[in-house]
């Protein structure tokens, strides 16, 4: 089980969190201006790296805020948590 540090609540067990996938995917400002391939890339394609990964977690059974975690996808070692530009509101 992962030990995840919520930037607001501190270190908690993984069971308190839900996973939000790859961080840094920004919804296009003008979807209508995108080609189908660009839209598909935003909607479906993922980097899915073997190694360092920046990802989203939600402290679902705590403060219910979103934040980022840097985790290695092979060793599962977490190197740190960070607040999102939005501050963590959903």
């Amino acid at each position: 089980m992962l030990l995840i540090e919520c930037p607001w609540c501190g270190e908690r067990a993984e069971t308190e969190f839900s996973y939000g996938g790859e961080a840094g995917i920004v919804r296009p400002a003008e979807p209508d201006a995108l080609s189908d391939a660009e839209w598909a890339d935003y909607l479906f394609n993922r980097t899915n790296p073997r190694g360092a990964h920046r990802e989203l977690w939600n402290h679902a059974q705590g403060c219910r805020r979103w934040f980022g975690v840097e985790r290695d996808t092979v060793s599962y070692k977490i190197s740190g948590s960070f607040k999102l530009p939005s501050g963590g509101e959903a």
Partner: protein
Amino acid sequence: MKYSAFNLVRNALSHNRNWRPAWRSPDPKRQYDAIIVGGGGHGLATAYYLAKEHGMRNVAVLEKGWIGGGNTGRNTTIVRSNYLWTEASLLYEKSLKLWEGLSQELNYNVMFSQRGVYNIGHNLQDMRDIERRVSANRLNGIDAEVVSAAQIKKAIPLINTSADARYPILGASLQRRAGVARHDAVAWGFARAADALGVDIIEQCEVTGISRDGGKVTGVETTRGEIRSGKIGVVVAGNASVLAAMAGLRLPVESHPLQAFVSEPLKPVLDTVVMSGAVHGYVSQSDKGELVIGAGIDAYTGYGQRGSFQTIEHTMEAIVELFPVFSRVRMLRMWGGIVDVCPDACPIIGKTTVGGLYFNCGWGTGGFKATPGSGWVFAHTIAQDRPHELNAPFALDRFVSGALIDEHGAAAVAH
């Protein structure tokens, strides 16, 4: 050497000292007509059908570890074809038909046992979905039936069909032609048969780069040197995104750990396969007597071939809900595989935007059952440079066109 009762006796008389290795271990040649990256069941099946069905014998299978050491040897060996959507059910049914003749075809006992698969329903919506799926299966010529709780209890005496259960059992779908197979034997059988047709199986050979020229592949760089080929088929399950990145491609898959377990060996107690999407677990009993148990993926992405403990707990809770008597059984081993999950829970089998580069990935949690069929359609795709009609709907560009095949939640077990 053909495996037969005669040869078994003959070799026994010479104290089993004259058996030959089942496949060669050649050094890689400089050039092949086709290279298959990934020596799991799907990759070996692809190479076998390339040689047998399409006459392409100058083929190499490159495996970074040992063959069958990835998900082929890590799954719970369930084989079935009762998928909801026509595209998916026809693909899996093609595979099931190949399974039915596979031991004879390969001259290798893959221990395919058609002991039936029950998909349990625990509430009215489950039962509606089961009725719908069974009807869809029958329209596609796939055997399927709806069975009552009483019929389940009669067939599986240990299962808890009490109305007081937290998740009462209301009925199930049953596919009698479904069952289990010996996973290692599938890899070894395809390897031996492919090798006999001239395919080079090269283990301990990791692909580190995909060479391209003018939008077409020219070969691969490996830990055993550069190997040239104009056709490269990639079948690497959890590492699909890593290989895709080598060719500058992005895929709509994410790699997750999927854990599985076996118990200590027991006397025969379960002669079929039981799956439940609602409590989320599946269980069968191996010929050695171990309960073979699995459930869902871990939530996070990962390549570490292990998962978190709460996933183990959830799995055991599901199994004990179905079979309270199993609460006293001890688990013997647990492990994880890395599954590449697609947004629509269906595989990607086809061409890419790079000429001569083909991908077969995205099987997620359910690839083992498709092993022969996957190889059969992928071999066709590589040899003819166009998909077979069975895998045409599973093209990578369905994520651009929007023609998804939404088996998530529809395919008899939640993924």
